[in-house]
């Protein structure tokens, strides 16, 4: 029950389809993961990728950079990495006439797509240097503020298994990531394809299909997607339900959660739902869009209590119950 899409939307869908195809040439499988990554790009949000080593996290991010024709830089986070190593530093420059001045040397953060590889290996000091860049999209060095290029994405990866010598990300920084995506092991068919593609003589060639300006236009379009008030209320209901002690919270939250999602989480959920709706060829947010985006947008914003950690319960399990509870208690016919 759908009318013909306007040409602009059809073109958007066509472009996104080409992006997916190009990424698929290098990164095999995980179509949902690719879609969620594109949603984050359309919503202008940062992404934290989590998975065991060797699953192609870095490959995925690099491929996205190639497809989108955006400047790309990679920062390998290590314990001895300093903030100036990523932001940049002022260096003393002597002019031909012998005049010496300080000039800011841009660090690797000045790129459209920044791959922060194994972000949890850097010290908290270096990690916090990313805070301003991620939220304000500018950096300050030597009393000067420098704007970061637009669009600006931080795609960070972290290894959840190898915890030796790592520094878990502070809550404030985790909250600045719009999505936290998990990469699982590919299935049998995907593994077979991966082996065929990567062990042969020819490496797959990836083309650019979307420029920075086109991406920015899409980002503007996403923000124009309307959301009905009852769905907005549903988002609020879901976010409040993640906080223990709130009347909306189910028992599982009261028992296993220490801290729930912030209002920034609600913002991320709404904007992600809008992007997902547009990617699906719709001009409004639906309840299904919100349901679909709850896990990637909120899973890293819940802090488990000791009981939750001890029970080995995951935030995904909690969010699934929160979603069911919030949807049940939410009555769209009111108001």
């Amino acid at each position, binding site marked *: 029950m759908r*009318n013909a899409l*306007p040409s602009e939307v059809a073109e958007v869908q066509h472009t996104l389809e080409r992006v997916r195809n190009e990424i698929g040439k290098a990164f095999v499988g995980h179509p949902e993961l690719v879609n969620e990554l594109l949603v984050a790009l359309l919503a202008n949000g940062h992404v934290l990728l989590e998975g065991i080593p060797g699953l192609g996290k870095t490959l995925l991010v690099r491929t996205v950079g190639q497809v989108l024709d955006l400047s790309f830089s990679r920062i390998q986070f290590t314990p001895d990495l300093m903030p100036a190593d990523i932001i940049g530093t002022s260096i003393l420059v002597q002019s031909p006439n012998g005049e010496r001045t300080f000039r800011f040397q841009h660090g690797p953060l000045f790129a459209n797509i920044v791959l922060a590889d194994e972000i949890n290996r850097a010290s908290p000091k270096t990690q916090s240097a990313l805070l301003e860049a991620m939220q304000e999209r500018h950096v300050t060095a030597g009393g000067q503020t420098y704007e970061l290029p637009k669009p600006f994405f931080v795609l960070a990866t972290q290894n959840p298994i190898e915890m030796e010598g790592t520094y878990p990300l502070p809550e404030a920084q985790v909250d600045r990531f719009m999505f936290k995506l998990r990469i699982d092991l590919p299935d049998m068919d995907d593994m077979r394809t991966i082996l065929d593609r990567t062990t042969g003589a020819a490496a797959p060639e990836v083309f650019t299909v979307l420029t920075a300006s086109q991406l920015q236009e899409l980002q503007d*379009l996403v923000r*124009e997607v*309307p*959301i009905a008030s009852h769905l907005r209320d549903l988002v609020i209901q879901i976010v409040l339900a993640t906080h223990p002690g709130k009347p909306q919270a189910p028992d599982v939250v009261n028992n296993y959660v220490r801290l729930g999602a912030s209002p920034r989480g609600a913002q991320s959920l709404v904007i992600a739902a809008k992007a997902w709706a*547009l990617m699906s060829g719709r001009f409004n947010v639906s309840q299904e869009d919100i349901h679909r985006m709850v896990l990637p947008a909120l899973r890293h914003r819940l802090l488990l209590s000791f009981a939750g950690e001890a029970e080995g319960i995951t935030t995904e399990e909690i969010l699934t119950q929160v979603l069911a509870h919030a949807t049940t208690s939410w009555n769209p016919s009111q108001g």
Partner: protein
Amino acid sequence: MPILILDEQLRLRIDAVLYRLRRVDQLTVAVRAMVASLLAFAPLRGIIGLAAGGEGGLISFALALIVGVTYIIVSRRPHHTRLSAARFIDRQLSLEDRLATAVERSGPESGPGNRVEQWLFADVAGLTRFIRPEELVPYRRPREVRWLVPLLIVAVVLSMPIYPKGFTWQIGGGEWQEIAKKADELDALADQLEYLAQQQPELREVAELMRNITEQLRDRRLSRSEALRLLQEFEREMHLSADAQGVDLDLSYIQNLAQRLQRINPTDMKSRESASQWLSQNQRRGGVSDRDPQYGTATDEYQEYTQTRGTPIRNGDGDSEISQQSASGGQSSGDRSLSESTDLTGGYDTDYYDPFMDDESYMSGSSAGVSRGDDRQDESFQRSPEIIREFVPVSGSISESGPMITGQAEGTMVPGEPIRPRVGGSTLAIMPVGIEQAVTQEQIPLAYRHWVKRYFESIEPGQEP
């Protein structure tokens, strides 16, 4: 950017759905309220009916009604709006909240629309043909309707007189016992009448009437309140049937009582008819005929009949005068104004307050309320059931020979002549009335009152035991 306006046809369809949603909701609430009322009525009627011996039907109905009204008030009915109707359509047709979003964004109050919203409005306008109100909201009977008929049957059954009566654990059980006791007394009185009927066969009909009342009191077909009312009326009529000399089983009293009994015995038409026949026979013989209200005094035939039975008929001078005055157009008020009391102490006189005293037909006879002893037939046959006999204090004193009223003056006044007091009329009535009052206060069974009164009457002043 333009203001977004919803497509007119689409808006009409949504409004049609809204209208039907409201109607269905109202119907559902109404049916549920009825079911709730009936559900409440059944146990209430059962419990109250058992506890009150079948009474309390009105209370049960009122309580059930309150339950139904309360349900309507407290039931959380959704407030249907165009937006809620749009959400309903979205859910029914799986429109992924498109219609609701468009409805919410439509209108000038929502401000100008952007590109995506314009696309949305163009998209939903194409959905009009899929929105069919009669299919989306069909008028179906609410599911609760199936409970209405069984509950109605239960309610009707429980409303029938199926409840046992007269148990001590029931509300008013003591009153039932009292009623049974009174019925026994009435039965004894009927026995006496039947005994007297050996000499006076006409009394048998009265006895039958009394038996009928007794049966009604005993078999508990009547409700408690009806039985009490019947008993109360019987006693009232019995006293009202009495003249100034109190309850006396003479013929005039029994005639009077018979007429009253057939009036308070509405369930037995046969008895009523027989009583009427009996009365008409007696009226032809000696009573006052309804067709001849002019005559308040007894006819010669009746006087002859009553004298044969030895019933004292006092026809004093004052009475004759009153009759003359009444015949000449005198009114009761004038007569009553002649009743005067001097300042004495003790003793009670009886006086009748009759709202029909101004009735011309009633007043046309000699029943002016003065000569009570002589015109009692007239009073008894024409007095309406609203008559209330009052005891009013009169002057008097208690002498050594018993309670005696002195200085009591009653009389008549003929225009142009001095007042002619009728000495002794009310004074003589004091003694029997006092006896009757004592008999009533001491709660002497009806069957024995007559004999107790006789006993007291037989005591001469100064010869008290």
